[in-house]
């Protein structure tokens, strides 16, 4: 897969927005923002960061084990995007482009780090390795059923553990399709593989996840 995110970024021209939460703002606003971003406007860049940082951080966090690493990767991705803003074509989807940069960054990180375990300083006192299991405040609100919350929490733990067992590309498939809601062609574009391969790899990725979920570890 191409490691250089900036060189190939101009080819992104996807019609539909990425993600299960959809795009923010009207398409006119998006275009104006994208144009300003292209022109290297720092204010526009700030808006882009505010608009997309949470979603991109979420996706990256599913790819790398440590929140600190995820934050670093997102930061690096945004910096790369800003540096390559001139190469971005305004008719492309800005989020897709940013997402692609971030995912490539995350994949590079995972490959370079191998299967080495990293533990965030912020979680150093955790009783078990839960660096990738952020707690939701919603779980702790009065009125919610604590038993349900506990069960849901356990399910999430299990999922994170299973995801951790997958290799980078398999995990990326699951994250992009099932967590981020990317279209097949977007995944093909990001991973630089044919559409048919995306489907077969995705199916196998799900199978691998199921096996990981069923394994006793």
């Amino acid at each position, binding site marked *: 897969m191409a490691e250089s995110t900036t060189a190939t970024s101009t080819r992104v021209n996807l019609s539909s927005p990425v993600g*299960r939460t959809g795009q923010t703002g009207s398409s006119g606003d998006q275009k104006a923002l994208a144009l300003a971003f292209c022109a290297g406007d*720092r204010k526009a*860049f*700030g808006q882009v*960061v505010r608009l997309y*940082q*949470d979603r*991109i*951080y*979420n996706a990256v*966090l*599913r790819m790398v084990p440590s*929140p600190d690493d*995820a*934050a670093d990767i*997102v*930061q690096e991705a945004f*910096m790369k995007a*800003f*540096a390559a803003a001139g190469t971005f074509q305004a008719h492309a989807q800005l989020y897709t482009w940013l997402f692609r940069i971030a995912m490539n960054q995350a994949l590079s990180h995972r490959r370079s780090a191998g299967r080495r375990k990293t533990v*965030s*300083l*912020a*979680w*150093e*006192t*955790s*009783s078990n390795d839960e660096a*990738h299991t*952020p*707690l*939701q*405040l*919603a*779980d*702790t*609100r*009065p009125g919610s059923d*604590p*038993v349900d*919350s*506990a069960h849901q*929490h*356990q*399910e*999430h733990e299990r*999922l994170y553990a299973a995801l951790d067992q997958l290799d980078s590309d398999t995990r990326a498939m699951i994250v992009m399709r*099932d*967590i981020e*809601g990317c279209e097949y062609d977007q995944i093909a574009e990001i991973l630089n593989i044919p559409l048919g391969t995306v*489907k*077969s790899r995705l*199916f196998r990725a*799900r*199978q691998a*996840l*199921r*096996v990981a*979920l*069923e394994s006793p570890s």
Partner: protein
Amino acid sequence: MSELPDNIPPEYLDYIEDELTPAQAMAFEAKLAADPVLRDSLDALRVDRMLLRELPQVSAPATLTRRLELGIQRQHSPWRTYRPALAAGLALCCIGLGVLMVANFWPAQTPAEGLALNTGKTAAGAGEKRSEAIGFSTLATTDLPTAKDWDLAILEKNNVPAVTPPAPDRGDVAARDAGGKGRTDDGLSAHDKLAMAPRASDPIRLPSDKEGILTRSMDTKVGSLHDVIDGSAKNVNVPTTLAPTPAAPVIRPDTTVSAKSVLAVTQPAVTNMVLALVIQVHNDQQEQTALKALQQVQNTQTKNWRLEAAREKLASTASGSDATKAEAVKKLRENEDQVDLRLDSGQMETLVAALPDSIGLFVDTPMPESMDKASKVSGTGSNQANNVAGQEPELNGPKQVGQQNLGNTSQPQRMRINLRGVVLEQQGGNLSQQFQRNQQNLNGYFDNPRLTNGITAPRWMVRIERITDTEPKASRAQEPAKR
């Protein structure tokens, strides 16, 4: 899991993702009815997908935007443009300096010249460079009286005159010792001076800590916190704007202390500590407000330590009796009232700014052992035991989190600074005086990596405490500590 074909039919994926049309779905389900193993496998994949889509969303760290701003500023800094040229210039300067130094000191480094002085023979006919070698020989030579004959042989081999005249401009050790009888101005012989001179093998000595050089930085930190405490005792104010590293607080006696300003002053004072910010709420509305504020700064560094422990407890009672389960559920509910989060300083600022004055705010800090013995922190209603226990994960690790610590009086005590009325809660004594008395111990505390967990950046643990046994007072903004 069941075997699935290698050439995956497209409807499998569509079925898993619920993207079949109703007619297609009916036809496919009819097909699956004939193959229950395949149906179970695909259904399992569907469930997995649903679970994946239900994973909680988290926000990016609040500091990310700031980090990006700084990164871009750095990228556009003129320093970056001229950096290569500056680096090259600096390198050239270093090389030039090195060449100069080598040219200046080269003769002194030859063994022959150094040894010529060590022999202690009367010198005559040598030049300026010879006397320069004294500096080296006095520092590095330890065997002045034990020069051997082979030294002389080396001298002859290198065409060095057998005797060296004293250098007229130095008039020091070697010159006066030319015949082994000379005395320096202070009455010491050259031999004495050489014996007293520092040697290469001597340990490096730093100024004594009694002089305060090593502890000065710590004094400064504690001094800042001390200022806050002193100020609080007098109910005076500190700046109302939140500066990252204020040099010194401006004391204005007639204004009200704001939490933001106190935090601004205390933060540099606690650089090496983990502090707890306690948010005290009295009702659902306040709790929701606090949770909302927390959600603004929520990131992956959040964790409810006691809730986690309670959940584990509940999970472990799955096969237990009803009474055990009920007890575990009860504990879980109790712990849901308190949320421990970890935030960095940027998030802290955002959080405090979002909290209205009607919600109590305290900074809860650990005290060194000597202060534990001298003073006890007063309770805050029914939650005091939990407060003390809840701090432990920061200092002693996760194994002691939660219920095991409840009521354990051997745990380090906390002092609590009320950020609203700025009243120190403490049983007896004056905390300010104790601070002065124990300042040295406090320095030791800050320096102890075991106690501070080796943390070098300020970190905050935030806790929401639900006070159920008292009602909020109208003047709580002024006197929240009276419970």
